[in-house]
């Protein structure tokens, strides 16, 4: 069945799960409210799957994050491919032991005898007034942990292709979905076509400065690049797609060409992914840079509720623009 020309990220991930479940009986889905009796997820990402594949393979769970991830780990080490949903990224904190001490480490600690081919789907992102415990970007914690991969798509088509790869991957993958852009339509993917993990995408070619981002803030980088083009600044935009493993080759090649780099993410700036990328750029390209590497991230505070505060908390187009100009100083 062909997809409509444009679909949103909810439809894209739903289609990826559907295609993966149709292709492999070992793919199972578990998480809070994921079954159709519970409306197929609070925003409907898993809608229809339990009706199609049965309650044994698509399981709504108790609100028990440790038990959800533990069940996924156990099933994964004996050959199933669970896709476990942790409703919101902040709730991964409740299951950190299972994710960090177990999912990420069992391959190494067992000397390669077991491995954990599971996906943890989770959504997050500021913009819906959900305040301090429902909107954090915590990817740096997981990227800091050896043994787990971290994926953060920025478009429906990428979400589809990356999800297919994540499910097929033999290592645990944390799959971060941005909630506020769930309903934003984009060009539909080609059915069955996977996007490899660990490979960044150059969304826009440029010669003067490289903008490096992932997840929702890629869209902001594209908007700023478009604006700057009007005044003759040629910005290259790189969508990392996968944060760990990081495609250093692609962004280093780009920065070697442009001599300038700005890293943009919604996570707070201190100790973030941007710091790692900036360090890698300095280590490799110190003498070739034409200006200081810049980082743009959210304000170093919990995500606030009040709308004006929330709007000011996350990176703005202006901040990205200012950062780009700072690389020319």
């Amino acid at each position, binding site marked *: 069945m062909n997809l409509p020309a444009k679909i949103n990220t909810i439809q894209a991930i739903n289609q990826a799960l559907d295609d993966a479940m149709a292709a492999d009986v070992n793919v199972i889905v578990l998480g809070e409210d994921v079954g159709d009796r519970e409306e197929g997820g609070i925003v409907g990402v898993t809608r229809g799957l339990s009706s199609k594949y049965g309650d044994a393979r698509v399981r709504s769970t108790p609100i028990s994050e440790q038990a959800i991830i*533990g069940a996924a780990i*156990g*099933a994964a080490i*004996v050959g199933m491919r669970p896709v476990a949903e942790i409703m919101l990224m902040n709730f991964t904190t409740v299951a950190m032991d299972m994710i960090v001490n177990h999912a990420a480490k069992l391959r190494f*600690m067992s*000397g390669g005898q*077991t491995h954990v081919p599971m996906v943890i789907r989770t959504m997050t992102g500021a913009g819906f007034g959900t305040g301090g415990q429902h909107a954090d970007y915590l990817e740096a914690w997981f990227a800091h942990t050896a043994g787990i991969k971290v994926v953060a798509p920025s478009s429906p088509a990428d979400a589809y292709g990356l999800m297919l790869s994540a499910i097929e991957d033999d*290592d645990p993958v944390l799959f971060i979905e941005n909630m506020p852009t769930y309903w934003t339509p984009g060009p539909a993917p080609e059915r069955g076509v996977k996007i490899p993990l660990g490979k960044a995408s150059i969304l826009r070619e440029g010669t003067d400065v490289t903008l490096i981002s992932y997840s929702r803030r890629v869209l902001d980088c594209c908007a700023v690049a478009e604006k700057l083009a009007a005044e003759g600044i040629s910005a290259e935009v790189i969508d990392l797609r996968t944060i760990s493993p990081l495609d250093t080759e692609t962004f280093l090649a780009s920065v070697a060409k442009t001599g300038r780099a700005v890293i943009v993410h919604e996570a707070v700036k201190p100790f973030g992914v941007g710091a790692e990328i900036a360090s890698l750029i300095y280590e490799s390209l110190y003498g070739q840079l034409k200006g200081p590497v810049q980082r743009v991230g959210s304000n170093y505070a919990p995500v606030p509720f009040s709308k004006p505060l929330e709007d000011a908390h996350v990176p703005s187009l202006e901040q990205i623009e200012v950062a780009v100009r700072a690389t020319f100083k």
Partner: protein
Amino acid sequence: MTAAIPDGEILVGIYRRMTRIKQNDERFRAVLKSGKLVMPYYSPRGQEVIPSAVSACLDDEDYICTIYRGVHDMIAKGIPLNDLWAEFGGRATGTCKGKGGPMHVTHPGTGVMVTTGIVGSSMPIANGLALAAQIRGEKRVSVAYFGDGASNIGAFHEALNMASVWKLPVIFVCQNNGYGEHTKYANSTAVANIAQRAASYSMPGITVDGNDPVATYLAAREAVDRARQGLGPSLIEAKTFRFHGHVFGDADAYMDKGEKDAWMAKDPVPLFRNWLIKTGLASEDQLATLEAAIELEIDEAVEFTLNSPYPDLAELHRDIYKDEVNV
């Protein structure tokens, strides 16, 4: 349904596992004292009965998840001694190429799927092993071993609830040795018996004398049969005592000496040995032969370990992901 009293062959099999645990433990402590091997070591001495009786109800295909204080569970499930000792010695020939160590032994061939160093974490993962078996329509069961202290951590409650809601083929075996690290049971736990907690999750809960091989076997038999028949999980609380404190080198100052002496006076291994001989289920010669064979096997395992190489440093970059990484 009540399980039948086990026959002599099963009982001698339980003793074989018990003495295997005891003899290995004695050698581990001796080798540690000699300085030939260095490792964090949690002696299972005094707790031999529980996994020996439980394992008598399991096959190689059945899974266990155990904990860092679980060398007896591993031995009872049948991990070959060479592989086990070499892992404890950090050698390349160990079960996990020396990369896991005593607290993280894995040996899928005998169903030892995960050994966790985190209190309480064996249970949620055992659920997952059981879930896979349930979805695939397999008859195998999963056992989660843990201590009394672990019944106070959230993962215990989450795991028991989920297992009951989904009727998973899992057996939760709590080895209640009276202490969580240095803290006495009564000072940390609000119920008289851990098994009471099963009621909160609508599953059978039984407290047994974990130093009585027959009672422990019967409880395990019933729980395993129940799980195999698709009737769901059970919680077994087996009361026991650890003879040598929490970790090797622990001076036991927090333990009551009289309490310890009283438990050690009824050491379950010689007690069961004498009982088998007295009831005519085994002869002195038979058991002595069996023990001597184990002793030789341990000699060989120690020798094998000490003569085995340490892992190649390239292992630092292997088994992190499927593909080698060198960041």
